[in-house]
Every structure is written in structure tokens, then in C-alpha cells.
């Protein structure tokens, strides 16, 4: 009788890449629901269209690279990329904007480097930055949140996406924009007089961030990633904001709470920074990596040209990840010194 010859271990844990990706997708649901509540169906339409384009691009790339198409499509990684990019894009973006972004993410950032696991830069953020630099107007036009203006209907959302010339949407500066432009009012007055500001941060935005925090907490609970990078990033951001808050003068850059709950902070912390492929690998490395993203995020928000900066901060640190890895190797069992030699 021929017995099977396989090497140990013979048992395997329950984890699979597919399941990891599915969990990430599930964890975006609270955030997407809250975004839809405040900004209408724009995000949902973004999502649907982005996913279609992503699967198409993925299949094309796999075909060109002569890889089996179905098993790879099945790993959900393209859907995760598309979802993350779709959430980052302004709702009611035109179809071509989304298509260009997704194509850049999948073909340029992912498959040109060898596909899943081999990309040095976060694909969703590459797509986002390509769009931000190429189409700054479209990329900085955010719809006003519910409560300040009428929220467009589902039909409007589809029209905005697929027949953009016929769509006449309203846009409004985001709280981060407002704060960046402000140089006359005390922070306290700004909150009182400007409609975009809510009780903690921006109207709508504070809840969107809390919803993504909830999704992120669930992923942590599910052990999809460790707390090190996101927590390090949030602490670094809050710390810098606290240091430079200066009590809320007209030159203030905003309170720690404002920064934590504005823009893409929570989404970035739990869905972008935690991308395993492009981040540092060791525990210490992830602490450094996350903290540096927090520092860059604050610096670019306050000092740079852009109101938000998750994409830039992440991409810059993607560059640095291998370097961080080299200098934060854990001490192997039975070895005396740290593993800092190159």
C-alpha cells in the first residue's frame, strides 16, 4: 500500500488568505453604511463600479501573465483594493475617474510588481495619489453631509457616476479644508460659526471615523492584524496635535480629537496602514512604521499643500519599510544582542 509522503506539519490552522480578505471587506461595512447615511449613495456606486473594473483588470493581468484566473480572482485581494480606493474617492465621482484609479491600482501598483504579495506600495493609495495629482478638482470635491444640504438619491448617484455631464451636484469644503484656510478665528469660534463642524470634529466625518474605528476594532479582535501599527499611528498623530494645539488660537492646527476623527484618520489607521504586504513586518518595526505615518500625516495636514495626507504618508513609509525591517529584527531565542546588523 502506498502511503502518502508529506512533511510536517501535517495539521494546518484555520487561517486562509481568502478569509483574511473577506474579513477586511466585512469590516468596512460600518464605515460604508455611515458614509452612505451622511453623504448618500455615492460611495456605494463608487464601490460597485470600482469592484467591476478591478475584477476586469485583475483577470486581464492574470491572463497576460499566464496565471490561472479563477483561483487568483478568488483570493478577494482585488476586491479589497477596489473597496479601499472606492471609499477614499469622493462620492459622486465620474466613472472614468474611478476606472483610471482602479486600473492604476491593479495594473500599475500590483501586477507590474508581480501581483499579490510582491507590491512594495499600497495599491489603493497609489491609485488615489495618481488621481489626486492628475485630477485635483474632481478629487477635492466632497458632497456636503446630511443635515447641511439635501442628500442625493440613488438615481442621482448613478447619474453622477455614469453620466457626469448631466449631474449638477453640490460640493462643500471639508472641515480639514476649512481649518487649513482659517487664520482669523479662534478654534472655538470656528466650531460655532462654521456649519461643517460638529460636536467633536466635522459633521458626519466624526461618525464615519468612529464607524471605521469599530470595524478596525473587530479586525483586531479577529486577529487579522496586530494593534502595533494603527495604535502607534494614532498616538503619534494625537501627540503631535496635542503639542501644537496651542489652546485653540486662530493659528491652531486643531485639537487631537479633531485630528483623530477627521478625514481618513481611522480608515487609514485600520485599513491602509495595516496592509501587511507593504508595511514593516516585525512588532517593533510596525510600531516605528505606524508612528512615522502618524508624524507624516500630521505634518502634511498642517504644513503641506493637501488638507489630508494618509495616502502620501503611507506611500512614503512604504519606501522605508524594508529599511525599518532591517533595523528592527527581533532578538532570536538564545542570542545575546538585538538583530540590528545588516
Amino acid at each position, binding site marked *: 500500500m502506498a502511503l502518502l509522503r508529506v512533511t510536517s506539519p*501535517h*495539521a494546518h490552522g484555520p*487561517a486562509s488568505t481568502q478569509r483574511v480578505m473577506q474579513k477586511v471587506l466585512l469590516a468596512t461595512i460600518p464605515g460604508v453604511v455611515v458614509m452612505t447615511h451622511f453623504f448618500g449613495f455615492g460611495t456605494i456606486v463608487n464601490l460597485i463600479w470600482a469592484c467591476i473594473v478591478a475584477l476586469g483588470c485583475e483577470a486581464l493581468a492574470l491572463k497576460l501573465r499566464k496565471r490561472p484566473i479563477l483561483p487568483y480572482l478568488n483570493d478577494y485581494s482585488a476586491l479589497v483594493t477596489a473597496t479601499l480606493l472606492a471609499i477614499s474617492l469622493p462620492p459622486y465621482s465620474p466613472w472614468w475617474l474611478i476606472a483610471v484609479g482602479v486600473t492604476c491600482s491593479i495594473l500599475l501598483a500590483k501586477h507590474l510588481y508581480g501581483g499579490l504579495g510582491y507590491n512594495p506600495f499600497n495599491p489603493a493609495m497609489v491609485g488615489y495619489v495618481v488621481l489626486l495629482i492628475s485630477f485635483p478638482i474632481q478629487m477635492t470635491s466632497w458632497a456636503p453631509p446630511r443635515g447641511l444640504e439635501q442628500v442625493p438619491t440613488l438615481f442621482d448617484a448613478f447619474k453622477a457616476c455614469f453620466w457626469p455631464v448631466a449631474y449638477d451636484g453640490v460640493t462643500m469644503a471639508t472641515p480639514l479644508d476649512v481649518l487649513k484656510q482659517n487664520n482669523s478665528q479662534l478654534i472655538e469660534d470656528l466650531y460655532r460659526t462654521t456649519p461643517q463642524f460638529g460636536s467633536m470634529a466635522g459633521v458626519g466625518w466624526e461618525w464615519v471615523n468612529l464607524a471605521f474605528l469599530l470595524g478596525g476594532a473587530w479586525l483586531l479582535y479577529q486577529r487579522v492584524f*496586530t494593534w502595533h501599527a494603527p495604535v502607534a499611528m494614532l498616538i503619534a498623530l494625537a501627540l503631535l496635535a496635542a503639542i501644537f494645539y496651542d489652546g485653540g488660537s486662530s493659528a491652531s492646527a486643531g485639537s487631537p480629537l479633531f485630528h483623530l476623527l477627521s478625514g481618513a484618520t481611522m480608515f487609514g489607521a485600520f485599513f491602509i496602514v495595516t496592509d*501587511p*504586504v507593504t508595511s514593516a513586518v516585525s512588532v517593533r518595526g510596525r510600531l516605528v512604521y505606524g508612528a512615522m505615518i502618524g508624524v507624516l500625516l500630521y505634518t502634511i495636514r498642517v504644513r503641506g499643500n493637501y488638507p489630508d495626507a494618509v495616502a502620501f504618508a503611507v506611500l512614503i513609509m512604504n519606501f522605508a519599510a524594508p529599511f525599518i525591517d532591517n533595523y528592527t529584527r527581533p532578538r532570536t531565542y538564545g542570542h545575546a544582542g538585538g538583530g540590528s546588523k545588516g
Partner: protein
Amino acid sequence: MRKLFTFHGGIHPPENKSQSLAQPIREAGIPSHLILPLSQHIGAPAKPVVTVGERVLKGQLLASARGTVSAAVHAPTSGVVEAIEDRQIAHPSGLTTMCIVLASDGKDEWITLAPTLNYLECQPEEIVARIQAAGIAGMGGAGFPTAAKVNTPPERKVETLIINGTECEPYITADDILMQERPQQIIAGVKILQHLLQPGETLIGIEDNKPEAIAALQTAAEGSDIEVVSFPTKYPSGGEKQLIEILTGKQVPSGGLPLDIGVICQNIGSVVAVEDAITLGQPLISRITTVTGEAVTSPGNFQVLLGTPMRFLLEQAGYLTEKNERLVMGGPMMGFAVPDLDVPIVKTTNCLLAPTPSELPNPAPAQACIRCGLCEQACPASLLPQQMFWFAQGKEFEKLEQHNLFDCIECGACSWVCPSNIPLVQYYRASKSEILFARQEHKKAEQSRIRFEARQQRLERGEAEKAAKRAARKQAAEQRARDTSATGQTGEDDPVQAAIDRAKAKKAAQQAAGSSSESEKQRLEDNVASIRQRLEKANQKLTQAEAENSEHVDALRSGVDKTRAKLEAAEQALAALSPGDKDKVEAEPPVDAAAAAIAKAMAARTAKAELDPAEQAKEKLRALELRLQKTRDRLTQSRSEDADEKVIEALEASIHRLQDKITTAKADLPTAEAD
């Protein structure tokens, strides 16, 4: 409560231990044939001491340990040695190895066992010798000879003796059941080790998923200084290095031994075997093996004879062949798939796992690494498995070594957690063997380089010596030529000296050849020589006395007679030595021949000296003519035989030289006659 530590990483795979704990230990019985590999342990294989066809008794030594890091093999039952041949064994690479095949006779007849050792009155060496004689090797899986492990150098103090009852691998319960059923014996065994090693403290480490075992041992250990320590269940707590860290907080230095930090670990099974060896005098001939998995209907633990074919043991547990695709020796994490059902149970077989395909499914195809870092979080050695995977794929061996590949204990935790189903451990194993192979090759290359260089040097030195000798010879020849021209002689070698030299050389060669009883022979020869001398002297005195008509003649004559008798006795003694010593018999005549040659040459010289110059000259001429004749004969012969041209040339040259000499000799002759 003792302060416990923890190690980095670890996993919690399903334990699956309850299946095999439902029943007490069962006897597996005696199979018709037992296959006993000579190498069931780490180190040199044992050396067979029985022959094919020999009947052996249960417990009889079949193969003895070869050196200290080796373990003896004993007959697990009585029977006949059927073969000593290569058989397939349970080895990850499907290796075959020398095995003693024993056909059991069913009588199970014991050999007379070594008596009980009262270890309290024994020297440590005696205990170690007994452990070694019993052939005990670490029964947790690695199989390091126990005697070599407990034979600590006296200057190395053992601070902590750790008994490893962790058994962290899923499915395996062999140690658990031993602890539950035989706690007294375990404690007795531990006390023997305590006496032997004199440790500062003794700990029995058990995972907290074995409450019965913990309770049993705690009861048994009451009143002793043995501490039973339980700690949270986590794979691989039972790894020696991990267990040491949990219990002491110390880490074994990379590439070092636990003893380097004053720790010695022993497995529960080994402790029981030690107790058997000391108090019962029994060698290691059986062990407890867990048989489990969904492909057996009656899983449990068996007391099984070493060498039992796995098929026999599986059948005792209700083996369902058709449901089993792979058979694992050991646990699901670190065990290996056995190639064949007929391979034997050995000293390290703690478990036979016969899973159904649904129980342990075949590995799914590997996907790309997404660097999720789960492996790093699971690694008990704090390595970076995902980085090492990259380097292993790219065959970047230098970087792998920098990332401490060789500290990987191959526990399989990284592979277990990997969401992409990458067989990480397999990559590390392959890389390790490739690196080791490269190191060996490098070593070989280095050795041959050294050998080549040494040879070159030797050749050069030889050349230089030859050149020096040639130069010396040349100089000597010139010197001789000058001397002869100064003394007016013909430059011929002194025949006496030559004969002496030849004799000496012969004697030296003969002495080198026959070395046995050389000194005895020498002594007798000396004896004979000295008596002979005395006899000669006595004879001389006697002759003188007779010539002088001395009154002492009678006394002298009786003295001569006595001495002659002594000489005869001595010669007889010498002769008596000779028959048993062929060398000497054969060697004796040449000595005499040499002596004769010396005598002949001496005589010739004396005769020559007595001749008048004319006669001398004639004599020389005759000798030369004789040599010339001989040389001509040889030349003719060489030509007829188509000999080497060089030989012919050399002969022609010597003929010319002889002719010249004859001419000079003839020229000398008339002058000599004229004198």
C-alpha cells in the same frame, strides 16, 4: 507558587488528546518478527554482537553501543536471530538501515537480569554505566543517548533538573498516561537522577491540560523536594528550549546545550526506563506508544515491544487501512509520514497517528505570501519566518544564516498559521540541508587544497634533498678521486669494508623483519656469545698451563668442561626459542653467512697483504680480467635480449673502464716483477 515565564509566539492547535485517553495502557503482544534497527538514537549505530541463527533470550544484548554517544540494542523477546540486513525504517527520508531481525519463539524467556542496583551506595559512574548498558535513549522524540546526557563533567554544576511531561503535540498521550498510571515509578526514577546529578532543584513541567497527571504526580512527590509545575497549554511548550524558558526564564545560548545554563532535561518515558534499568536491571526493550487518529477504531496507549512492525501495533487498535492515506510517526506538528506499514516501532516512537483524509486534509496549494506576519507572531524562536521564506526562495543562504535559520526548531507553528498555506518549514529544512551540504563541500575543497599544497611542498623538498645528495655524492667522489690519486691506489672500494657494510645492512633488515621475542632472542644470543668468549679464554689459559706444565691444569680443565656445558645449555635454550619463531630460523643463516663473508673478506685481505707486490699485481690483473669477462657476458646477454639501450651503454662504458684498468695493471706488472 513558582514564578513562571513565557516564550515568544506559540499556537493553540486542537488538542485531540481525549480519544487516546479513554482506555488504560494495553499490552500490544508479541509479533512473530521484530525488526530492531541498530540506529534508534542520535549518534553512532550499535555494533551487532550476535550472529544469524543464534537463539537469544529476552533482554539479551543484541548490539552494543559504539562509543559514548550511542545506545545498545537488546532482544525484546526470546527467539532466533533471523537476519542482520538493511531494512526500511521510519525515517523522514525513507532511509534503509542495518537491522537485526528476530523471529520470536513465543516463549518470552528472560535472560538472567543484572541485579538491582542500590543506587544510593553507588558511584555515579556505576549508575551511568548501568543506564548505558540498558540502551536508553531520549524517548521524547530526539533519541539522544541518556547515559551521555546524564554523564555530566564534575565541574559543570546542574542547577535545575527538568523532567519534561509537557507533551504539547496534539494527539499524543503516551507521557500523560504514564504519569497517570505510574506516578510512583516516575518519582522513583527522578530520585535516581537526583542522586546522580545532585541538582539544586528538580522540576516536573506539565501543561495544565493534564489535570489527572498533575494530581497523580503531586501526590506521589509529596514529602520529596521534587516540584510539579503546571503552566498554560501552548504549543510548543514541550520543546526543550521553550520549557527551560518557561520554568527558569533563561534561554539556552544559540548553538549551546542546556547544561551551559546549568539545566538538564529528561523526558518522562526516559525516567521510567532509567528506573527499570536501575531497580529491575531491565534494559530498554519496550515503550508506551499512542495509537490514535480516526482511522483506528480503538485508539489508546500500548506497551509495545521495540521492533514491533507498525502494522501489528495498528491492528491491535483496530486499523482501517482503506480510511488511512498517511501514517504519521509522532504528532501532527513535528511527526513525519512513514513510508511503509512494515517499518518497526523504535525507541523514539511516541505516537502513531493514522488520520482520515478529512481529519488531516492534504495541504492546499500554496498562495503568495502577503507578509501578514502571523508566522512571526507564532515563532517560538523569535525568528522572521516570512523574511526567511523570501531568502529561501531566492537561495540567499548568507542572509538566511544572518537571520538565524539554524535557530529554527522546525516546530511547524509558522506553517500552521500561514493563511497562504506556504510549507515554510519545508523551505527551511531544504535550505538548512543545502547550507550544510555547501559547508561540507567547502570543507572538502579546503582539505584537498591543503593536501595538494602539502604534496607540492613534499615533492619540492624531495627534489631539493635529491639535489643535495647528488651534490654530496659528487663531492665525495671527487674527494675519493683526490685521495686515491694521493695514495696511488686504484680507487676500488675496500672489499672488507663493503662486506662488513653488507652484513650490517642484512642484519638490520632482519632485525626489522622479526620483531617478536626479539629481546628474548637477543638476550640468549648475548649469553651464548659471552659464554663462548669465556670458554675461549679458559681454553687459552688451559693451553698456556699445559705448555707450562702448571699444577692448575686439572682445575682449568674441569673449568673448561663446565663452561662448555653452560655453552651447550645456552645454545639449546636459543635453539628452543627458535622453533616457535620462524623468522629467527630463517633469519639465523644470513647472520652466519654475513659473519662468514666478513671472515672470508678478512682472510682474503690478510692473504693479499701477505703476497708480495708482484703477486698482488697479478692477482689484481686476474680479478680485473675476470670482471671484464663477466661484463662482456652480460653485454652479450643484454644485446641478445634487446635490453634497454641505457643498460647496454652502461655495460659498454664499464667494459671500456675495465680495459683501461687492465692496461694500467699490465703496465704496473713488469715493475712489480722487477722489484
